[in-house]
């Protein structure tokens, strides 16, 4: 798939923002007043900024309100609904903390549940697609959730949760890459089933239907060099997980914590780029792509 900057930024930043809101809702850290204001501002900048970035890839952002209507069938619609609900509930909860110094327990728990549900719905937008075998797997929501919870805990300064979650997310990511590399092959979709000509013999794309490019090729047929991908995977693992874990284990200092956050952010941006760029859409088969794997 085409790794569009708007979706990479959206999933990375709003994932972190909703992760932070989750911990704030649970009362870790149990902040009030000005420091609560600072935490909530960061969380809203990340979550809302990410959501706004996602509207940049819409052809008609002015009609975005329509996307709240189809929650019965559409994960994208559910995500919109969950995000708005989470932001409204957490705003009420945050206002209580900042202005009244009051922690309304049940409101915080509701907001935390809605925040994490939002991340789940984001993951399901990708995970539901049978057309992208690499994504259609339980590890997709599992990774989105551990990354959001781990990154959120890192931002919330909850080292005891951040450490195990980041280690878990790193291991899961490494395994998901390894396992994901063979998912297209194991899905059983090949040029032979795509054309139905496999009964007769070996099928090969002889001539494409158009001499130039088109929407399908630009959007869905993106091929990354294997060496390039391997190098980026290592960078993502080191920046996203290894370095932040080491920094968290060092004696606490604010600049170390800030460095851990920045490093994690860079790592997640790199792995999200790979998440899209490496995802093989079966339509590529019609154009003779992914033949090595299928």
């Amino acid at each position, binding site marked *: 798939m085409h790794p569009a900057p708007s979706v990479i930024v959206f999933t990375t930043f709003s994932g972190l923002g909703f992760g932070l809101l989750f911990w704030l809702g649970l009362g870790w850290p149990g902040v009030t007043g000005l420091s609560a204001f600072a935490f909530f501002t960061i969380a809203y900048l990340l979550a809302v900024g990410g959501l706004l970035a996602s509207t940049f890839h819409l052809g008609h952002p002015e009609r975005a309100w329509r996307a709240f209507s189809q929650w019965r069938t559409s994960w994208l619609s559910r995500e919109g609904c969950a995000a708005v609900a989470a932001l409204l509930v957490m705003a009420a909860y945050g206002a209580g903390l900042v202005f009244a110094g009051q922690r309304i327990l049940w409101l915080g728990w509701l907001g935390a549940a809605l925040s994490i549900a939002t991340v789940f719905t984001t993951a399901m937008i990708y995970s539901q697609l*049978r*057309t992208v075998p690499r994504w259609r797997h339980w590890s997709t929501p599992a990774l989105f959730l551990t990354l959001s919870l781990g990154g959120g805990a890192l931002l919330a300064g909850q080292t005891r949760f951040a450490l195990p979650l980041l280690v878990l997310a790193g291991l899961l990511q490494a395994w998901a890459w390894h396992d994901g590399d063979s998912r297209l092959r194991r899905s059983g979709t090949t040029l032979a*089933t795509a054309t139905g*000509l496999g009964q007769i013999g070996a099928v090969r794309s*002889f*001539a494409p239907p158009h001499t130039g490019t*088109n929407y399908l090729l630009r959007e869905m047929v993106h091929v990354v060099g294997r060496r390039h991908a391997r190098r980026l995977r290592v960078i993502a693992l080191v920046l996203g997980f290894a370095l932040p874990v080491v920094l968290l284990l060092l004696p606490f200092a604010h600049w170390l914590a800030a460095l851990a956050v920045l490093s994690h952010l860079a790592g997640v941006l790199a792995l999200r780029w790979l998440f899209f760029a490496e995802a093989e859409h079966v339509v590529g088969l019609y154009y003779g792509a992914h033949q090595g794997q299928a």
Partner: protein
Amino acid sequence: MTALPPPSAVRLGLVIDLDTCVGCQACVISCKGWNTENYGAPLSDQDPYGAAPAGTFLNRVHSYEVQPPAAPAQIVHFPKSCLHCADAPCVTVCPTGASYKRAEDGIVLVNEDACIGCGLCAWACPYGAREMDAAAQVMKKCTLCVDRIYNAHLPEEDRVPACVRTCPSGARHFGDLGDPDSAVSRLVEARGGFDLMPEQATRPTNKYLPPRLRDHVEAPSVLAPYLTPVADTPKGFLGWLDRALGALPGGAE
């Protein structure tokens, strides 16, 4: 609503004969023409006369080479457009309700006024049947020429999709695949019509007819005896001439 309607009795669709298609691209052009002038936003082109032209098409014709284990390779021309799937994943993923499947005949359409251009439906379609128009920024797809097939202003013979009407080799058939006695259903039955990517569980309405097996040249032709030379050694005057000429320098040995 993006919930799929209960299965309809009438299921309109196409049957495409891979044996007959000659890859002339006439259906591609007639589709582009009709759908640019009629239903919805026109199918735009970008840089049409420049170095890198690109554009929106609802129907495209690929060409494949098939290599049977013990016969010469075959070229198969392969037209592909929306298959109007019974379990259309493109419809259920749509967040706005712009994509829908008609309850009465199973045609899958996009209400362009409600489409936000998110592109998720195109991601959900395994066949590459949906293209976002770069000028209108809304999703375009085959409408099965819904504005022709029911159009009482057109002469009877034109009330079929533009691609079917134009195909010079009769490789495209239109009809009700929900009716087992329709001409298209009987054709599918007789020729072993198949689904594309059945493992994607979309249950397409459109069917493809396989190319027929090619002849193998093993025994000599039945006409061969009539083609063999009547006399291989000339006799009489011709025989004398042949021998005489052969005796000259540079003649037959």
